[in-house]
């Protein structure tokens, strides 16, 4: 679930308020947006992907809250990781989208296991 919006990184652009699919984040009268409905967070990490300031930390934990401070989040080195590896914004061209390799992986796994049967479980 989303645990932090780092005040000293946030530019108050409002993108996270707009893109959060479950409307977890609310605009504040002043200052960074508020985590208004964390219990509705679906842990999809998409707010992070859309945050150009790398100011958001989503913990992978979807069924329990995690205590983390802004200092710990910065020290983890993980802020902005999703956006970077997706090659968005300033990372364009540096991390190619290799989603196409997925079918190769399933095929190789199928060949390594039992060739004919693997085909119908090729989900991502």
């Amino acid at each position, binding site marked *: 679930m989303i645990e932090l919006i780092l005040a000293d990184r946030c530019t108050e652009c409002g993108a996270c308020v707009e893109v959060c*699919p*479950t409307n977890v984040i609310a605009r504040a009268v002043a200052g960074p947006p508020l985590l208004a409905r964390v219990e509705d967070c679906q842990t*999809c990490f998409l707010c992070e992907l859309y945050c150009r300031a790398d100011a958001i930390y989503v913990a992978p934990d979807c069924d329990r809250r995690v205590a983390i401070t802004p200092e710990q989040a910065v020290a983890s080195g993980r802020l902005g990781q999703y956006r970077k590896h997706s090659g968005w914004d300033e990372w364009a061209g540096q991390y190619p*989208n290799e989603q196409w390799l*997925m079918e190769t992986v399933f095929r190789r*796994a*199928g060949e390594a296991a039992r060739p004919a049967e*693997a085909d119908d*479980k090729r*989900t991502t």
Partner: protein
Amino acid sequence: MHSSADGPSGVTVTVIVSDASSLALSLTADVLVIGGGMAGAWAAVSAARAGARVILADKGYCGTSGVTAAAGPGHWWVPPHAREQAVAQRVAAGLGLGEAAWMHAIIEETWRSLPTLAGRYAFGIDDEGRTNYRAVRGPEYMRALRAFARDHGVTILDHSPVLELLARSDGSIGGARGLRRQDGDRVYQIAAGATVLAAGGTSFLSHLLGSRTNTGDGYLMAAEAGADLSGMEFTAAYTIAPAHSTMTRSMAYSFATYYDSDGRELDLPFGPQQTMGLAKALQAGPVFCSLHRLPDDIKARLHTISPNVPLVFDRWGIDPFGDRFEVTLHNDGTIRGLGGVRVDDVDGRTAVPGLFVAGDNASREKVAGAISGGGNVNSAWALTSGIRAGQAAAQLARAVGGSAATLTPLGQAGLRPKVRTRALDIDAIRAGVRDEMHPFEKVLFRKESTLAASQRALDGLWREIADHAAGDLLRSRETAALVASARWSVATARQRTESRGLHHRIDHPQLDPQLAVRLLSSGFDRIVVTAEGQRASAASRALEAAS
């Protein structure tokens, strides 16, 4: 319409206000699209291309909400020379419920239409320098589809869940009504010549990645309009994820090695039986996993294949290629299951005039058969049914014209209590749905006694919600949809007294050739299950689920 206010102890109670005063926004369109995942976005684009004025309303944000956005749907992508064989194989695997003509149609539409997104989506180039169209990454795909819809002049209403459909006096659908969540929950109403429902499937609130806004609203709304559901028994699909995470992306697990809590390796070979085996192992105790067998070249590129997959491991400080981490299975419900609204054509037309249904909101039995369409068929279906429904809706809207019909709201359970409004514990009702729709012993290993008990439990929840709920409109409406969808599923599963594809009955482990038919479900207080092709009377009584 109702508006809500907080009552004692945080429970919401309802204040009825007059319809006119609460209408903040009244809009008209030729085509209204409900839901902005891949099916809805393609529908909006194609309706606009056909000349319609289009409004698309999503509960969340068109671009990030829904299961398309968070994952990476691979499309069914088959070159012309290979189609006969691919379809023949799928028809056979589908155990009598698939239709070759529908499969050919979605392969062809996908082949033709997916590349048209090239101006907005940078399709991958493989190691041989060839463009790969079939495999798209979810966030980029939905971002592209949103931009594409805007290019075509579509009006997008984000954070605007639709609560109910509106009918004209002849019963045809003439629009919908919902809430603007980021505008003080104000009500909006859209009068439209034709409506496309593309509100997704439902995981019954499991932690399946991206599925939180998919609460079966589209099933309930279509049923209230008079449409049937089909294939609702096929909900026994599950996907692996690291325990306590939502990351139900299974690619890396094709090379997984599993262990019990004593560190003993489990015999769970990759293949169609693996989910069953994992579920049994999880019933016995915690299961751990290591991805050390993943080929080194893939390990090195995991973050550029699926950038969200490593997020979980990195943040927990787990080395998935060395450490053993605990795993779980999340229920896919109808998403990588099959059930949904029965549609009569690839263009999503239903028995209800003016209403088209696309994507996971529709049953996928005819394109997937009795097995999951999760690996490729689902996306081809969502794209095709979206595109074709958009075209058909635009055409119908032209014929209907802009007549100012009187519109009657169709929403019942969760909006308009049958008895009287009473404060309900909505969280407890939601937990009740999860309790019946997620446990392996009730869904994956079905039998009459547990199904009957589920039905009783869900009937009780339905009475509460249908008789009394109206408080927080969105939550009570979503909950009504979850309970209704669960009841159709369980009622249909009781009637399918055999095992076929995704549906397993431990008390009926064999295929029954008599049941090589699609099963339809309908009704609210009393659910009726019929075999497709049979009509009412004697035949339906035979399959009737008393409720």
